């Protein structure tokens, strides 16, 4: 009797689940894509458009875009979802978190999927710009597929150049020129500055990246590209970079003191309160749409050489995504990083299309013809290096960003700051270092 009842109940429940889940009825694989939005609400809509098209073209898959905030928050959300046993099928992850995720065993290599498509890793990665390989290929395995990328870029209000009697076609190319130009552009009313010559963002996440750009321009390196347990904070090249930034504030007085958030920097630039800024190429579309004055962009000025880090994000597949879901994720990833889609997203956002072939499409050629600033941004890729990525990237990054904030507020000298940052970073990475580079045979 009870058995019958239970069976009946179970049957009813099963029937209900059939009725309630159209996905099951249609045999669709449901996957979610976690994505951060780098600029504004418009991009969330663009992403929805992109995935809608994907779902129409691939009726057996139903991909849902899940907007997860900033890069840092996307990492947090992904980890929380994995802990809850619900890993998303694919994530657009900040490119410098991949190493950390690999060390913790949270993302899976894509080698088998690439092989199943009849390609070698080199052939697969060959479609992307060389500068992007370092953050995606770890230990010779492919862990991420570059989706959109950026580098820092110098933005200059050319109206202000003219006002100051400078040639609007000649933008500062090195630190010397940057300082002299910024001095001429800075406007004062007594002691009060009414317009800043130069601004650079220094909030968490952005500050480290900009400092890395200055360090590379100064001939230096931020971290050991081949090993996640070393950063080069306390080095002459970084000391030069940090001192340069600090001098812009305290000595030349052309850059405001204290931490400036990315949004504050672009707001100041767009409202004419800052004449030059270093900001991501990812902001190009935003600036292009909202600037009511002519502006130009240029490479990040150099001291020793032209070199910048990449930024942006790659598509990853978390550990625990298996079977049909993994296949569906792979289909989505390949579709999103194809030359056409990659190019479309690039034009919508200002980010690079990582896929080199995107720049051979007719739409892209026409776009760059019309917007030469986008072309300059891409050409800087030839001088790009991997973004810093270590064991526990975020706290290791925070270690120097906190010191950077202290220097920009004249609380510490650059040298003191770098020594402290190095010590802090070494302390954070110690467990990893002890279990890798310092783990030696005992007998």
């Amino acid at each position: 009797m009870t058995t019958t009842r239970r069976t009946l109940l179970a049957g009813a429940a099963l029937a209900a689940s059939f009725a309630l889940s159209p996905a099951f009825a249609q045999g669709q694989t449901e996957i979610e894509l976690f994505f951060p939005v780098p600029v504004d609400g418009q991009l969330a809509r663009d992403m929805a458009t992109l995935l809608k098209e994907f779902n129409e073209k691939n009726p057996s898959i139903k991909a849902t875009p899940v907007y997860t905030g900033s890069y840092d928050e996307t990492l947090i959300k992904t980890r929380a979802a994995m802990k809850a046993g619900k890993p998303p099928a694919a994530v657009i992850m900040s490119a410098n978190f991949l190493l950390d995720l690999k060390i913790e065993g949270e993302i899976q290599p894509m080698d088998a999927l690439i092989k199943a498509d009849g390609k070698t890793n080199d052939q697969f990665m060959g479609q992307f710009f060389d500068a992007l390989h370092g953050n995606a290929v770890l230990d010779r395995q492919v862990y991420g597929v570059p989706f959109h990328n950026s580098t820092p870029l110098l933005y200059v209000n050319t109206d202000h150049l003219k006002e100051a009697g400078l040639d609007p076609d000649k933008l500062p190319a090195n630190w010397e020129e940057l300082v002299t130009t910024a001095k001429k552009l800075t406007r004062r009313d007594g002691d009060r500055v009414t317009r800043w010559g130069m601004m650079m963002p220094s909030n968490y996440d952005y500050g480290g990246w900009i400092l890395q750009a200055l360090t590379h321009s100064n001939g230096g390196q931020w971290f050991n590209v081949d090993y996640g347990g070393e950063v080069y904070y306390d080095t002459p090249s970084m000391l030069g970079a940090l001192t340069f930034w600090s001098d812009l504030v305290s000595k030349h007085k052309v850059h405001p003191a204290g931490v400036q958030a990315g949004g504050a920097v672009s707001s100041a630039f767009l409202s004419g309160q800052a004449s030059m800024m270093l900001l991501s190429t990812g902001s190009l579309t935003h600036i292009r749409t909202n600037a009511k004055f002519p502006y130009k962009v240029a490479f990040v000025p150099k001291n020793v050489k032209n070199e910048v880090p990449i930024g942006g994000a790659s598509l990853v597949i978390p550990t625990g995504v298996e079977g049909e879901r993994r296949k569906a994720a792979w289909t989505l990833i390949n579709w999103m990083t194809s030359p056409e889609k990659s190019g479309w997203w690039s034009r919508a956002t200002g980010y690079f299309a990582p896929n080199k072939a995107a720049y051979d499409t007719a739409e892209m050629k026409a776009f760059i013809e019309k917007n030469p600033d986008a072309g300059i941004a891409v050409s800087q890729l030839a001088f790009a290096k991997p973004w810093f990525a270590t064991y526990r990237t975020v706290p290791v990054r925070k270690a120097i960003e906190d010191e950077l904030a202290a220097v920009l507020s004249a609380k510490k000298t650059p040298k003191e700051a770098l020594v402290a940052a190095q010590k802090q970073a070494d302390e954070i990475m110690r467990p990893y270092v002890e279990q890798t580079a310092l783990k030696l045979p005992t007998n």
Partner: protein
Amino acid sequence: MSQASTGVATGEVSPKLGYAATLLVAALWMVPFLWMLVAAFNPESIGAGMASLVPSYIPTLANFREAWASADFPRYGLNTTIISLGILAVQVVTITLAGYAFARLEFPGRTLCFYLFLLQLMLAPVVLIVPNLTTIARLGLYDTLLGVMAPYFVSAFGTFLMRQAFRAIPRELEDAALIDGAGVFQRIGFIYLPLARPSLVAFSIVSVTAHWNEFLWPLMVINSPDLRPLTVGLASFTRGAEGAQAWGVIAAGTLLVSAPLLLAFALFQRAFVNSFVSSGIK
């Protein structure tokens, strides 16, 4: 009573001066709201003019349209409503039952129970955000509205409030019902609850306000865009990775999110003020 503020001024600072100072501070207090209004209807959204508190433009709804299109506000509003009212619905049951037990029943361990409840006042779920997230995940409630609600289903504060209200009700009423053969739930439902209505209303307003405005906990629990409450939706405007902010749109979005409660307050000012006074702890 009124003597306090109108008494003869013989001291160092005249009460009139104090009154004037208060009005001055009130003006200052209004500035953020004023800016929100002025900026929200500004045809511009970025640029130098955004800081003006005097509107020098023809008002437009463009920022609202942009905000409305960037985020699914009706959906978020619905989620927030479900969360706030869902929590309240369960709370009303739990606090009534527990409140009655504390108010009218003598049982061993009652003082201990009182302190067990009191403990919740400081162990707010947000303080225990990390372990609570684990619990929610284990219960299979991660990324569900129920997961956002569950930790708030019991309220020590509400229990104490109900207990006091119940204790103010004459015992004779219950005794009469007891003689008529009313069961405990009937007595609670037909005698205690109607008479404790003011306290229940007070608690409801405070509870809904608190959960309507909550941010960090739903941010951690919810992933799906369809399940996002208003506060989490709003935060997406203000935080971008590498970009800039459209201030007019932010102001419009903030206004949209705050409007329901502000409107409710405008309509039921007295009830709101009374509730908050009698509440103490959210």
